[in-house]
Structures are given as structure tokens and as C-alpha cells.
């Protein structure tokens, strides 16, 4: 950390700084240097000399930062064929010398080169601007002298539980005490009971306690009461709402798709799943499996499938003219990056284009992981498919009711239509089919009901020829194309994908012995004909035209062909029917029946359906509309679905990260340097997402436990033990208290990855309960509180600031889950291109929901939350860097939520006449009010009231706060209380967790 104690432009390394510094002569320079050394003492204390140099924590960071770019894992950049990241290479002869000769500094060429005064020889080369600092040289010298003992980067070393002779929470204290003692510090005394209750409430459920609950604890703040309080909080439903936010940052959760159009998308069912899972204390191991691969679990439940929406939070681009494959690839890369970031704290962004220069991740490793994620069906489609229907019991029941009604009506309708058909059929007779032949060899089976069923081979085109035994007068023929009563996906034609038919040409003949009479068709009518495929085209002499019925090919159809002239068939004669079907693609009849009539055309007009049929048809249509309406209300959430076996995508390396420049084929694989025994475990099989999840959570993975323990610790203490929560690799920060981190990681893992148990252990420690007062001594010894030398004190998140304000004013809605809501924001913020969606300020309960339910549009996130460092959900956000800006002051002074909360709090205050200030301070800050505070705020109320007695201002203040003046109180007096309430809500103590 010494290396970053001087502010500089990151790329401007020491040489530049020295040059820059050298321009400033005299006293200033001397001051600078003396201060620099002060700062080194203050910030870099963990680098104080130990007896022996530790490779992972002291040597490797220097080699990583100064050498590996050219002498590391990246082949493409490697200079002189030398690797310093591998012990064997670094200690073997190379170019006439040995880079690192254990125990012999002078004989090590590495030492010679870093000390050379020859610009041609010195390392790192001057143009790399990476000259080593004296203290870095010193580390290398001592390390070589001590025997150059090799090791791995600290976070890649196996995770082992440090030996501590005590039970859980006390172990934390012991490890912290140990670190503090080395700096001449010790744990601070406990914070007061009111401070503790508020602290543990905010940390656990993100909401403040009621003063009454705090009083109850304060009356008897003993160990049992503390534990009871923790248990009570961990069981609250608000726990999941608070902790879900951490996951949502990691998952890049948003309610829109991102990019140009940024249209809405139904992700909230996943958010609700997350809250349920956290409240149920689902082990991290199981959450991991379900989120990464829930769909691949045997017998996956709907909830497990829904969990996979975690990785469908990637953006999709609906901009006109974009290449879906390009953006599908970007989403897959995002899944790789996010997974490694969230579970392993490794940054792999650079491995998209080339082998990582610092951590052992090759370009091929990256695309091996890419190949694992490359096998899902989603493909940057406009409809975001595949989607999962997320049914609740109510919708489920409604849908079943609609479906039942449809089934009932269909049965009755079928009966009514049968009755109609019977009346119609009375006009027709079904002659016996004596012969039936398919020109292409399909099997035509004559059924007892006079129908012909076609089976067997399914040629592209066919000609059916039938002989019908007919005697007497014939005026017209009827063709019925049938579908099975069982319904299903079968239609009137033989092609299962498109069960349509095309009757290209129909020929009719009467055959009486040798005599053949060709019959002409005068007219025809059909119950339905496809556009441009009318029934008349079936006898126009053209084979290219014909009768067809798409898109109604899954319903029965009929057509009547009226002969130009009635014909009489003698007893010896047959009626021959030739059905030519030449469209191709097997659009041929599957099941049909011919019937004939001798009646005059006027008698064979189609009969009107009965009144009952008409009614039933109408109610069927209505029932279907109802079903559609119910269906439209069913949330459909994008989920991960694996592609079928035959559709697996081949993965190629994207050269320099460019998807248009594919390189070698890469099989799915776990990163080689981290795969442990997993290559054997997979026994030649390519890993899938489930294997990946199991590997991430397995004891072989040295990073997962550390990364997660650190993350939870940071959410509580405001700061990780490893400050760079996002980077546990060679360029990340070192753990400020390595034994503590490892102990916590083991504890979390060994307790079954239970977040609730883990939090309870932390809360039960004395370290957690320390007072948070800062002293100059503490500031200089542990400015960032990385050693937990006191209770953490930091500004609350934007979400908690909002929720707390609503809670203490009594406005907070307890409604949980469901679609995201739109609390007030200024008009005109949403101006996305080609997107008609609008922000409509919620009224009623939805105006006052917890922040976790606020609609998040990626291109225009809710301003009051982003002002407090909330993200936009575009990429995985590992931690939020806290800022302190004037724009934040404007939000808590002037945004509608703040104003309305002030109004509501003023109402609650004035319900305690004579005690309004005390009540307000207690509700907001929990602790009892102090006399001087009460006096100040009472004086403020007086001043405001006096200056508001004239004019409309008092009324305006009350109106903006959306609150009614208590009866018997003047507007001016109440406006004064609103201003006081607003002041309380803006107190530093209010905005801070301490």
C-alpha cells in the first residue's frame, strides 16, 4: 500500500513523479518528503518489517506490478522468453545468468538488472516507467538473501482455519485484538445501548427500531437480550429486502433491457425469489447452484428455473440494425465476468482480448468459461425469450377456471355442431369408396364411416384417385377435410410442421365400363380459403394454383363442388375422383370424406347454424378473450435454458476480443490454474453451468469463501478486510488482517454457508459492538478502520436513507414484492429514443414502498438513489464508492420523499403536545434527546412560525408536504414543525450508521 500513498495519475509511475517532484525545490520538497513518510507510517503500517519476508504478501506484489507485464503469463507480450511468474524458470539459467539465485543477491541477474545504471540494461526499462522504490528493492534483496522461498499469491493459497482457542464470536475479537496490539491499540469500549440497537437494526433489516423496542433493550442490555434481539431481527421479512440489494448490485438487476431503447422487462419475479431465498436463509452454496444452473438440476422446480434469471439480467440491444449475435456474445462475456467477479473476486476483463498479465488466467481460459455459458437459448431477441411464466396461486386458479370454461363450452359446442352437421348430412349421402390409390405410394385406408385416412410414406406431392360406387342422379359433391377430435397439433394436411393442404386440381369422371365421361364443375364454395388460394382454383386447369386453408389448417374444412349439369350414373358406373396435390412440401390431405347429393343446388345451400351453436361460439370466443387477458397478466421472466444436444454452439476465441475475428475452437473448461482436481472429476466431459457452480463452491476453490466473507464484512463494517472487494488478484489490496479473513471464510463455509448464522457470529463479537467515536490517535493509526479499531461509522446507502425517512415518519408501506413501483421523480427525465414508456408518479401506498421496489431504468436510474452512489444495473457492481456531495444535500432537503416524510414526521411529533421535539428526535435518532438539541429545535420552530404568520408561505409548505394541519393548530405553527422535522431528517447522525 506504500506504493499508492502518493496521489498521482495512475499511469505516471515513480520516474515521472520524481521528475515532477524535482522541479519543486527547497522547503516544499522537504515537507513533502517528510509528510510522505508520515503517510507511509499511517497508511502502510501492515508493511512494517517482519522477521522474514513473505512471498505472497510482499514479493509477489512487486514482481506482479513491475515484472509480469513482460515476464509473466501472457505469451504475446513476453520478452526475451523469460518468465518470472514460475519458480522453476526464475531460478534456472537464462541468457548467461540465473535471474534469482537463492541466498546470493549479488549473483542474481534480477538484482543486477534492477540496480543497473545503464539505461540499456536497467529493469524495468525506463520507457515502462516502473522504477523500483528503495523499499521494494529492499524487500527483494532480503527475500533472496533469506533463500528466495517461493509461494503463491495469498488468495490462491489453500484456506485454513487459523487456530484460535475460543468459541465463535470471541475468535473474531481475539484476531482483531492481536492485530490492534501490534499497533499499540485495543478494542474500544462498547457503544451505548441505543446506538447498538439502531446499528444492528440498520445492518440487519435496513430500517431503524421503534423507540419502544430500543427502550426495551436499553432497560436490560445484557448478553441474552442482545442475542434475542439479533434472532428477532434475522427472522423479520425485511431482512431479505435489505440484503437483496447487495445481490441486486452484483446481479446488475434492472427493470429494463438497457442500450438505446431501454424497454421494460419483467425481472421483479427474480427479485422476489431472491428476497424469499434470503429470508429462508438458503445456503450460499444452494443459491449459487440455483442461480447459475437451476434449470440443469434434476427435476428442477419452477423456483429453481426462476433463479437462473440472475444471468438474464444482462442487457439486450433492440436498436435497429444491430447484430443480435454480437450482443448475445457481449451478454455471454458479461456472464463470465460477473461470475468470476462475484464468486472469486477475479477481474477477467483483460483476458477477453489477451492472456491476463498479472493473474494466471489465459486467453483460452476465458473462452473455456465462455464456452460454458455459450450454451443457452437466449440470443438478444426482442422478446427476450426464453421466458418463464411466473404463476401465483390466484393467477393459476384464474387461468385454470378459464381453461375449464373453454373445455366445457367446446364440448357443448361440439354437440351443437354435430346436430347442425347431422341436419346438413341429411342432404348428403356417403357412397362406398371401392378403390383408392396414391400415385406416390402412400397408404390410403378406407374407413367404415366412408372416410379415407392417409398414412405411410409422405411424399412432397401426390395424386389420390378414388372410385365411388354411385347410382342415379348427382348434382354436387362435398369434400370434408378432417382433423382428429382429440385436437392436438395435427391438422388437415400431412406435414406436421405445416398441416395445410393444397388441392391443386380436382378431376371428376363417370366411368361406365369402357365409357368415360368427364364432368365439369360449374361452381364451388368452401367454408374457408386461404388468401390467394380460393376453392375455384381447384378446377381452373392450372396446377400452380389451388385451394388451401392456412392459417386455419388445424380446423376441419369442407367444400361443395356443384356440377355444371346434373349427371345420371348407371348401376354399372362409378364416380372417379382425381385429387391432384402438387404444391410440394407434403401439403397433402391426411383424412377426408367425399359425399354426394342429387338434390337441386338451391336445396344444398349451407344451412344456418342453430341459435345454440351461434351462442356457444360467442361464449367460446369470450372465454378465449378472458384467457388471453389472464395470460397477459402472468409475469414472464427471462431465464436460462440450455440449448438442445444438436444445437450446441461451437466456441472460438475472439481474437483481441472481436467477435468478427474468430480464432481456434475452445472446449468448455474451468480455468486451468484454479481447476484443482476437477479435471479428473469431470473425466473427459466438458463442464456445464452446474459443474461450474459446484466448482465455485467446492473446498478446492480458495477464493470463494474469502471473497464472500470479505463482502459480508464490508457490508457491515463499511470496509472490507481486503479493501479491493472486486480484486483478490495480484493487483488487488492485501488483507489488512489475513488471519481474521481466513477465519471468517472458514466460519461461513463450515456453518453451511448460512448468512444468518454468519451475521449472528459477527454481531455477537465485541468488535462489532465497539463505540464509533474517532480520536486523532485512531485516525492516524487506522484512518480507514481496516483494522476494526472502532465501531464503523459511515453514511447510509441511498436506499436506507429513503427507507429510514419513510419509517420514522410512519409513511413506509409494508407491501412486499410484486412489480416495481414509481415513486415521485421530476418530470421529463425519461427521454429515451423510440420508447413510448412513461414514468407515472405513484399515488397511495406505492409512493412509499421500500427503495428495493423502485423501478430501475438503466439509462435513467432513479436520481435520488444514484446521487447516493447507487448504480444503474448496467454492469456488476461489487461495491459502491461512497461520496459526500452537495447534490446529496439537495436530495434530502428538497426531493418529494424528503418533504413528505418531514410532513408526516411533523404530524407524529405534534401528537405529543409540549414534547414535539423530544418525540421527533426519538423517532428519528432513537436515543433520548439532549436538552441543548431540544432548545435549538424549539427555537427554530419559533423563528419559522413567527416569520410565516403573514402570506401564503405556511400553507405552501404544508401543501408540498402533503399533510393536514392538526386541528387547533395554525398553519404557521405547523409549518414550523415541518421545518424542524426536515432538519432532524437531515442531521448527520440521521444519515449515518454508527
Amino acid at each position, binding site marked *: 500500500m506504500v506504493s499508492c500513498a502518493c496521489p498521482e495519475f495512475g499511469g505516471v509511475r515513480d520516474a515521472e513523479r520524481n521528475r515532477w517532484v524535482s522541479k519543486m525545490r527547497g522547503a516544499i520538497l522537504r515537507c513533502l518528503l517528510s509528510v*510522505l513518510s508520515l503517510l507511509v507510517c499511517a497508511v502502510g503500517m501492515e508493511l512494517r518489517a517482519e522477521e522474514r519476508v513473505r512471498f505472497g504478501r510482499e514479493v509477489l506484489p512487486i514482481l506482479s506490478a513491475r515484472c509480469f507485464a513482460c515476464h509473466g503469463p501472457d505469451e504475446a507480450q513476453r520478452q526475451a522468453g523469460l518468465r518470472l511468474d514460475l519458480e522453476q524458470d526464475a531460478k534456472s539459467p537464462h541468457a548467461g545468468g540465473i535471474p534469482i539465485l537463492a541466498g546470493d543477491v549479488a549473483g542474481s541477474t534480477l538484482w543486477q538488472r534492477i540496480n543497473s545504471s545503464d539505461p540499456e540494461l536497467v529493469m524495468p526499462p525506463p520507457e515502462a516507467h516502473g522504477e523500483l522504490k528503495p523499499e521494494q528493492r529492499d524487500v527483494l534483496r532480503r527475500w533472496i538473501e533469506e533463500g528466495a522461498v517461493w509461494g503463491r499469491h495469498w488468495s490462491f493459497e489453500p484456506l485454513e482455519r487459523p487456530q484460535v482457542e475460543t468459541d465463535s464470536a470471541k475468535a473474531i475479537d481475539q484476531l482483531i485484538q492481536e492485530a490492534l496490539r501490534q499497533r499499540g491499540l485495543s478494542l474500544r469500549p462498547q457503544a451505548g445501548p441505543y446506538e447498538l440497537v439502531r446499528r444492528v437494526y440498520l445492518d440487519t433489516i435496513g430500517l431503524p427500531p421503534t423507540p419502544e423496542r430500543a427502550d426495551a433493550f436499553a432497560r436490560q442490555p445484557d448478553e441474552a437480550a442482545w442475542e434475542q434481539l439479533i434472532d428477532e431481527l434475522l427472522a423479520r421479512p425485511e431482512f431479505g429486502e435489505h440484503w437483496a440489494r447487495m445481490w441486486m448490485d452484483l446481479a446488475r438487476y434492472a427493470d429494463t433491457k438497457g442500450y438505446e431503447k431501454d424497454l421494460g422487462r419483467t425481472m421483479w419475479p427474480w427479485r422476489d425469489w431472491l428476497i424469499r431465498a434470503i429470508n429462508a436463509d438458503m445456503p450460499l452454496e444452494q443459491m449459487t447452484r440455483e442461480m447459475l444452473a437451476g434449470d440443469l438440476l434434476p427435476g428442477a422446480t419452477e423456483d429453481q428455473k426462476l433463479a437462473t434469471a440472475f444471468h438474464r439480467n444482462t442487457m439486450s440491444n433492440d436498436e435497429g440494425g444491430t447484430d443480435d449475435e454480437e450482443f448475445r456474445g457481449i451478454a455471454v462475456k458479461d456472464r463470465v465476468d460477473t461470475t468470476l467477479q462475484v464468486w472469486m473476486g477475479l477481474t477477467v476483463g*483483460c483476458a477477453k482480448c489477451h492472456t491476463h498479465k498479472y493473474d494466471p488466467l489465459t486467453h483460452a481460459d476465458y473462452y473455456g468459461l465462455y464456452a460454458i455459458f455459450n450454451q443457452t437459448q437466449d440470443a438478444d431477441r426482442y422478446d427476450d425469450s426464453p421466458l418463464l411464466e411466473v404463476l401465483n396461486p390466484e393467477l393459476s386458479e384464474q387461468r385454470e377456471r378459464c381453461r375449464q370454461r373453454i373445455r366445457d363450452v367446446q364440448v357443448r359446442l361440439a354437440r351443437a355442431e354435430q346436430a347442425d352437421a347431422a341436419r346438413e348430412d341429411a342432404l348428403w349421402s356417403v357412397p362406398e369408396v371401392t378403390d383408392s390409390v396414391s400415385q406416390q405410394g402412400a397408404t390410403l385406408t378406407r374407413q367404415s364411416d366412408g372416410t379415407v385416412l392417409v398414412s405411410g410414406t409422405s411424399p412432397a406431392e401426390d395424386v389420390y384417385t378414388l372410385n365411388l360406387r354411385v347410382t342415379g342422379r348427382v348434382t354436387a359433391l362435398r369434400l370434408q377435410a378432417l382433423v382428429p377430435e382429440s385436437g392436438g397439433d395435427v391438422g388437415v394436411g400431412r406435414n406436421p410442421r405445416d398441416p395445410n393442404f393444397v388441392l391443386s386440381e380436382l378431376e371428376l369422371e363417370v366411368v361406365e365400363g369402357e365409357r368415360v365421361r368427364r364432368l365439369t364443375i360449374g361452381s364451388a364454395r368452401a367454408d374457408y380459403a386461404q388468401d390467394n388460394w380460393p376453392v375455384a382454383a381447384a378446377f381452373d386447369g392450372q396446377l400452380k394454383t389451388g385451394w388451401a386453408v392456412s392459417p386455419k389448417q388445424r380446423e376441419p374444412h369442407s367444400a361443395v363442388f356443384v356440377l355444371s349439369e346434373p349427371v345420371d350414373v348407371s348401376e354399372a358406373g362409378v364416380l372417379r375422383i382425381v385429387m391432384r396435390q402438387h404444391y410440394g412440401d407434403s401439403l397433402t390431405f391426411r383424412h377426408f370424406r367425399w359425399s354426394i347429393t342429387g338434390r337441386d343446388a338451391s336445396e344444398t345451400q349451407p344451412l344456418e347454424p342453430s341459435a345454440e351453436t351461434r351462442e356457444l361460439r360467442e361464449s367460446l370466443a369470450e372465454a378465449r378473450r378472458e384467457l388471453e387477458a389472464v395470460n397477459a397478466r402472468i409475469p414472464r421472466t427471462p431465464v436460462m435454458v440450455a440449448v438442445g444436444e444438436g444445437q450446441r454452439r461451437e466456441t472460438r476465441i475472439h481474437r483481441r476480443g472481436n467477435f468478427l475475428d474468430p480464432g481456434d475452437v475452445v472446449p468448455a473448461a474451468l480455468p486451468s490454474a484454479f481447476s484443482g482436481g476437477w479435471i479428473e472429476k469431470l473425466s473427459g466431459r466438458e463442464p456445464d453451468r452446474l459443474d461450474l457452480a459446484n466448482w465455485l463452491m467446492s473446498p478446492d476453490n480458495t477464493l470463494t469463501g474469502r471473497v464472500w466473507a470479505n463482502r459480508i464484512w464490508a457490508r457491515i463494517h463499511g470496509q472490507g478486510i481486503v479493501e479491493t472487494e472486486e480484486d483478490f488478484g495480484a493487483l488487488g489490496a492485501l488483507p489488512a488482517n489475513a488471519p481474521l479473513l481466513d477465519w471468517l471464510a472458514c466460519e461461513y463455509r463450515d456453518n453451511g454457508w448460512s448468512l444468518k448464522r454468519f451475521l449472528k457470529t459477527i454481531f455477537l463479537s465485541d468488535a462489532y459492538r465497539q463505540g*464509533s467515536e474517532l480520536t*486523532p490517535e485512531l485516525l492516524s493509526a487506522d484512518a480507514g478502520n481496516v483494522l476494526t479499531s472502532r465501531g464503523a461509522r459511515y453514511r447510509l446507502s441511498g436506499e436506507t436513507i429513503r427507507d429510514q425517512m419513510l419509517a420514522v415518519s410512519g409513511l413506509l408501506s409494508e407491501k412486499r414484492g410484486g412489480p416495481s413501483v414509481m415513486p415521485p421523480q421530476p418530470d421529463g427525465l425519461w427521454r429515451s429514443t423510440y420508447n413510448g414508456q412513461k414514468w407515472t408518479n405513484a399515488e397511495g401506498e406505492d409512493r412509499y414502498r421500500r427503495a428495493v421496489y423502485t423501478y430501475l431504468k438503466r439509462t435513467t436510474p432513479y436520481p435520488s438513489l444514484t446521487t447516493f452512489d447507487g448504480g444503474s444495473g448496467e454492469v456488476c457492481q461489487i461495491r459502491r464508492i461512497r461520496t459526500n456531495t452537495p447534490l446529496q444535500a439537495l436530495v434530502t*432537503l428538497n426531493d418529494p420523499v424528503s418533504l413528505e416524510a418531514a410532513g408526516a414526521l411533523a404530524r407524529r411529533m405534534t401528537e405529543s403536545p409540549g414534547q414535539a421535539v423530544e418525540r421527533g428526535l426519538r423517532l428519528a435518532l432513537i436515543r433520548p434527546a439532549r436538552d441543548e*438539541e431540544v432548545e435549538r429545535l424549539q427555537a427554530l420552530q419559533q*423563528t419559522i412560525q413567527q416569520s410565516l404568520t403573514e402570506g401564503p408561505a405556511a400553507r*405552501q409548505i404544508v401543501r408540498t408536504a402533503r399533510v393536514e394541519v392538526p386541528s387547533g393548530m395554525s398553519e404557521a405553527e405547523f409549518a414550523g414543525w415541518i421545518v424542524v422535522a426536515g432538519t432532524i431528517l437531515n442531521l448527520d447522525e440521521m444519515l449515518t450508521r454508527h
Partner: protein
Amino acid sequence: MDPLLENRLLETRRHLLRTAGLGIGSMAMQALLLKDAAAAPANETRNPLSARPPLSAGRAKRVIYLHMAGSPSQLELFEHKPALQKLHLQDCPASFLEGKRFAFIRGVPKILAGQFAFQQHGESGQWISELLPHFASVADRACVIRTMQTDQFNHAPSQLFLQTGTPRLGNPSLGSWVTWGLGSVNENLPGFVVLLSGGKTPDAGKSLWGSGFLPSVYQGVNCRTSGDPVLYLSNPEGMDRGLRRRMLDTLAEMNAEEFERHGDPETQTRIAQYELAYRMQMSVPEVLDISKEPKHILEMYGAQPGYVSPAESADDPRVLYKGDDPTFANNCLLARRLVESGVRFVQLYDWGWDHHGSSLGESLDETLPIKCQASDRAIAALIRDLEQRGLLDETLIVWGGEFGRTPMMQNNVRSELKKGYVGRDHHPYAFTMWMAGGGIQGGLSWGQTDEFGYYPVENPTTVRDLQATILHVLGLDPYRFSYLYQGLQNRLIGPTDEGRVLQDILI
């Protein structure tokens, strides 16, 4: 800079210095932290936005970036190509289509002649179209880069690439980089201000002025032209400045007591930030109030104080565009007032330059002249106005879209020319941008394209070159100006050194 340090600086730039016991060291420490050893009078607010000098002396001290979102046609504005006239409505040569991907063009499109007349202007003889008569009159102040190239051909990725250095989301914008590097001169104003016109946010949205992995204080602040200029800047109705003052006094007193108890320097910063917010409530509306400008200045820009265009809130603003709409002109005048008041980076986005010709309000023949009319006078006025105030030498003005437009007409909706529907598709291979002021040579025409304006034939200039050049004139070495994030020294110009500073166009 290292994010670790950055984070700590945001906290400790104030903490350490305030702490008693460091004595003389604290003064020098502050100097060190503020990267300004020479100056360093104790600064009370210790704002992370405090001004910092660049590493090397840059000619430019501030930037006004005029981004025409959607991408204006270089062939109607700057690129005079008689060859297109000759081949007008003939099939495009196959060599231009092979292996190419277009956003909308399908099959073989027809060549489309430039729709407007060109003339040479100024001593430098720049070719400029009749649509930009005012810009033509200041042609000798600008360097017109005719060979810009990008590698993205859709709006959002291309805008992101230009403004943040990557076609994806999550990187800091140019304005954030510059503000992070140089701070702001006026602590009562945001360091990086964004002004919008044209009725829509540019396609890539707010990420275009996001701070990415840099601390969020460096993100652009969108000063709106209607409603509160900065969100929640106005006190609620009934709460006048006097009342607010009294409330803040009580708040400050109580917070000071809290500091006495807890000793957290962050509390003191918070007190200061509330005071700064209070000052901003005055200073922001003041600087944004163009009604104070004299009449001749308003006329010079074509500005009109208080005007709210119906296009700004329309569902489809394009059909409401008018040549005399003063919204963009107002923003130009605001830009001058802002840089004059010490804002480091002013970014204008004017939406509505995507002239495909496939629907109403997006044609070259009807919409482009309107857009030009509504912006040309103001842009020329901005250059002249900065010049007459002696600010042009230190203010870099950049103008351009995110890519260019094809020499072929767009054919996916209709293949015949129709009035009000003449358009061109996206063209990333050659387009025009210009820069003026701030260390850039005026009257220069940089690069040359082929007779169709399809490819550069001389001095091709990439987005990386442009970014490198902008940083360079500000005194920020583009190769070393970086921020350690996710294991990489992230730079605006990307991981490779292919971007070059355009030395030949510098003074």
C-alpha cells in the same frame, strides 16, 4: 489513479489535513494531495472537484463539446463530391458493398448525389455547404477533420466508443476523465455540465456522461433547461432563502455538536457540502440565466431566454423541429457562460441528426436544413463570442456526430427518391468532425477522402486519435493518463497505443 487511493483521498483529503498534530506538514500534505505544490492556500471546502493543474502545460483549459446525436451527413455539409453527381441514382459499385455490414441498407443501393451546393470559404478555402453560412464565415478558426473513422455502426455503441472509449457501458466519459484530471475552477458549480436539446436523450443515454469506474462526483450534471436546472435545486414552495438559511444554521450547529462527540471528519465535510448546496442554489440559476445577457449577444446566438420548445416534450420531436427554435442556441450561450464561470467541461447533445429518410422528420432534404438553421448561427456565435472575450485560445470546441452517412441512399423502405424522404444510412468509414480554439490550428483541412467520400485516401483519423489529441491539448498525456480498475490501467484511449496525437493540427 489507484481506486484505493482515490477512495481514501475522497475521505482523507479532508480528514488527514484537519487532524491536529501534523503541523506544518499538513500544509504541504494538502499541496501534495491537491497536486498543486505551488498554490495550496488552505481550501475550506476541500472539494474533490478542486482545481488541479495538468501534468504538462496544455493549451486548452476547458472544453465545449457539441455532439450532434444521430450523426449529420458529411456529404451535405463538408464533403464536396462531384463524382456522386455523375453517378447519381446508379447502382453502387460492388466493391463498396463486399464484406460490409450496414444498419439498414439491403441489397444493392443507389448512389445519392450531395443534396446541396458547396463553396470554398475563408482564406483557407474550406469547402462548406450552403447549409452552414455562419460557420462558413468562421471557417478560418476551425480545423475540419474530413477522415474520421470509427469501428461501430450503431448509434449507442458508437456514441459510447467516442465518448467513453469503449462501445460498451461502464467506462467514464471524456468529460468525467477531464474533470477527474483537472478538477473544476469554480467550486460553486459542477465541474462537468451536460445540456440537452432536440427532444430526446442521445441513444446511449445517461451513460454518455457517467463516471464509470471513476468516483461518481465526476459524472456530468445534466443542467435542464426547464424545471430545476439541477435536480432538487429549488427549495419547496413557501421555503424562501431566509427560512432555508435559518434551517441550515440550526442544522450546521447540531452537526458541529455531533462532530464534537464523534470526531468524524466526514461530518465536517457534510456541513461544508450543505453550505455548498446552499450557494449552488444561487450560483447555478444565476449562471444559467441568459436573460442577463445583452440584446446584441442574444441576437448574435439567436437565443431567446425562457423559451421552452414544444419539441422538447413531444413523443416524436422530429416532426416539430423548426429552424428558428432557439433551444440549441440557448445551450450554446449557456456553454459560454458556464466555461466563463469556471466549469471545466460542457457537453451539448443535440438529438435529431439521424437522417435515414425512412420516416417523416428524418430526411436530408427537409430535416437537415432545419437542424442546420437551428444550430449554425449559434455555433458561429459561440466561436466569435469566446474569441472576443479572449477565451477561445484556451477553450477547445469539438463538433461532430458519432459516425458519418453513406454515399448511397438508404433503400430499405423505398428505393425511389421522394421529397421529404431522402436519406443515407450509417457510415463508419469516413466522416467529418471539426475542432476549434484550445491549441488547434484554424483554417486547416485535415485528411482527404476518395471521390465518393467513402474511404480516407490521406491521413485517416480514428476515434482513438481524436481522444488522444483532446487529452493532449489539455495537458493530460493520453498514454499515461489512467486509472487502475479491475487489474488494468484503464485509459480513455483503450489498452493499445494505436491512438496518436494529431501533432500536425496543433498550433
